[in-house]
């Protein structure tokens, strides 16, 4: 993990919790992490570091940033950027490569897609050389079969040319550096591509930036396929997923169909608190008009909360000081989400 990324995740306006940033980047999906991730406007980076080093040495890094004069400690857990830190952050935005293609609403299973895609390219490449004896890149059983089936179904209809021109047109749509990096990821006949480290040495980016460029390139490829109507759409099975997890989506569906929290909990053998977390997760990811806030918060409750928090910034609301009967933490947090939109 590196200091630059941590600095980019901090703000000069809003104190942010270090632990929360770490959990978010590592892909922990508690409601608290997601809520604060959205408050920090870094929700799209959720799970971004899953396949790279996590922030293991965050305490050391933050101390270094403090010693450099970029960060000060706001309280025991929260940190803010100094003016110098803000300037540094602005200049890093220019020079440090952060993923640009991640989505707030969708999660891309990049690893899965990449494994399939690399295998497909390798199979095609070896086929173009009439070679059937080679070491395939590793993919799991399911993905291997998916590629096998795809290959056998289409191999006779201009398969090689189609894929060749598809990739060519994708690469032509990119800037030169990223096109070269992408081409150097591909594996095929007598060509094993480059590792992150080799790419990093070659293209003058840090290894982490290469990893981020990779994220963008694979997402761009996914989108390119999505827009293409080609048989390559087979590769996308389960690759683009809603950020809201399946059971939370199910809860939301039942809730919209009139079941209350108690009934949903009973039906699916869940705790009520879990059902509430499901609803909060939906609220975080959905637009205001997509979520039926009025089915949970009565006009009266909203009026009470409006009055109570009239002049307070959302980040500073304190549930412990609320002390209003019938408004539990669930409703408080939901209101907080509603007001954040």
């Amino acid at each position, binding site marked *: 993990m590196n200091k630059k990324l941590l600095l980019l995740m901090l703000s000069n306006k809003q104190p942010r919790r270090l632990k929360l940033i770490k959990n978010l980047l590592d892909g922990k999906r508690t409601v608290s992490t997601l809520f604060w991730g959205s408050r920090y406007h870094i929700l799209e980076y959720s799970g971004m570091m899953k396949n790279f080093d996590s922030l293991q040495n965050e305490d050391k890094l933050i101390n270094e940033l403090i010693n450099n004069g970029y960060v000060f400690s706001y309280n025991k857990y929260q940190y803010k950027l100094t003016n110098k830190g803000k300037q540094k952050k602005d200049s890093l935005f220019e020079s440090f490569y952060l993923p640009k293609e991640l989505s707030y609403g969708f999660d891309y299973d990049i690893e899965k897609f990449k494994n399939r895609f690399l295998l497909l390219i390798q199979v095609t490449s070896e086929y173009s050389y009439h070679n059937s004896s080679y070491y395939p890149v*590793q993919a799991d*059983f399911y993905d291997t079969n998916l590629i096998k089936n795809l290959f056998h179904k289409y191999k006779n209809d201009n398969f090689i040319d189609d894929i060749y021109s598809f990739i060519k047109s994708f690469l032509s749509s990119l800037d030169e550096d990223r096109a070269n990096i992408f081409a*150097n990821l591909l594996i095929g006949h007598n060509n*094993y591509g480059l*590792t992150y480290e080799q790419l990093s040495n070659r293209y003058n980016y840090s290894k982490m930036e290469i990893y981020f460029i990779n994220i963008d390139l694979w997402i761009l490829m996914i989108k390119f396929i999505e827009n293409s109507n080609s048989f390559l759409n087979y590769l996308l099975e389960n690759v683009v997923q809603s950020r809201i997890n399946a059971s939370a989506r199910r809860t939301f569906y039942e809730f919209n169909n009139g079941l209350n929290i108690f009934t949903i909990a009973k039906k699916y053998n869940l705790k009520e608190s879990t059902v509430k977390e499901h609803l909060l997760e939906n609220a975080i990811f959905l637009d205001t008009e997509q979520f039926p806030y009025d089915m949970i918060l009565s006009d009266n409750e909203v009026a009470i909360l409006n009055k109570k928090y009239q002049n307070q910034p959302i980040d500073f609301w304190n549930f412990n000081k609320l002390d209003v009967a019938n408004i539990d933490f669930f409703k408080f947090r939901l209101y907080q989400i509603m007001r954040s939109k």
Partner: protein
Amino acid sequence: MNYLRQKLKKWFGFDDFRPGQFEVLSSLSQGENTFGMLPTGTGKTLIYQFFGRMINQPVVIISPLISLMQDQVDRMRYLGSKKTVAITSGLNFVEKKRILNNLNKYNYIYISPEMISQLDVLKYFNKLDIGLFVIDEAHCIIQWGTDFRPEYLNLHRIIQSLNNPQVLMLTATASKTVRSEIVHKLGLHNVKYIVKSTNRSNIMLSVKYCDDTNDKNNKLLSLVNKLCSPGIIYFSSKKMANMATIFLRQKANLKVEAYHSDLNNENRYRIQHQFMNDQIDVICATSAFGMGIDKSNIRYVIHYHMPSNIESYVQEMGRAGRDMKESISVILYQKNDEMLQYNLLMDNIPDDDDIISFYYRNYKKNHNDDEQTKLLKYYYDNDYSEEEVINIFQARRLDQKNSLSEMLSYVLNNDCRRKKILSHFDEKFSAHNEYCCDGDHTKLNLYAANLIRSNIKTNNKHNYDWNSIINSLFNKMH
């Protein structure tokens, strides 16, 4: 002989067998349980691949190399046996079920001792008409059986429960005592032994004594600058392998890559195959992380840290010179290097306190799932008493210490090194010369052996431009 040789030509395209292959195959053809002790790099895989094809019945291969099993499968497929599968913990539930339900469709099935020990896996093998039960790297039963992979000790029961199929044990490194211990632990009788010399006469042996780390690094640098590539350097830790990679990249005009368990599958694949295709000169590896490919033209293996026993040493240096051309193995030794190995070894074996506290706490309450807990759990579950376990591990520590002492005595020995190493495997040797080793005050003749690099060539075949990359990928160069 003629029949087997014809098949060899027909199935594999080779004119002749390598030493030991034919004898083992003949013994197997006569229905004997066979112990094949063949030197590293003599094509042990070919033996069971050949035999499986001959008898047209499934071959089950117990392999210790969990991380390499998929590579072994890929290799078998690459060599033409497409109906090969590995049952590993990497499979998910559905995949595993599917393979197990279709087990009789495969000709070669790789599996670890841990996996085949599971009763719900074993029952599928019971239904199989197994033609040959292979124990690959059979020395692992003794080397790892107690303190690392106790499931190896189950193989005896497993062979019985499978109705005693014909067994083939293969290894490159087992002394006479170890061989009979293996056979004993497997509960086999009437085993035919095919024992070939461990000696790899085309690999020169050398030990270089270093004053301190600085001196060691300089000697390392001068070796990689001097010797013909490609080569492998083995380290005891990932950290040292990484540091040396950076050091050599800066100081030597060579392509150097680190290779250890920090690599993900994708990068591991890239590096293995770049190395295989001579795009990398030097690999800095940890010995714990195996290599799934067989590269024939490795000219040198350097041990930056001495191995912990002679068997490991012979295995690791045996990666050199598989093309039978002259190669060299060098150990860089600095005083007290053995302490590093000693500490690593002892860290991996539970001590008396660990065992007492494990039994005292009763492991069921212990949710800690580290390697040591798993290990002790094995003995607990198999009704070993606390005292027995303490004794087992005390004996194990002593064994390991003795093996390390033997390795050290090889390193410090000033007579013929080959003689010393072969004596460990109960072999005699007296043909010492300037191509043998640098013991006995001998200067190795590296020039005549063609091991000195004549000109510095950089292997920069790589193409970086996307247009030419995809043209070459899809055969559009013309």
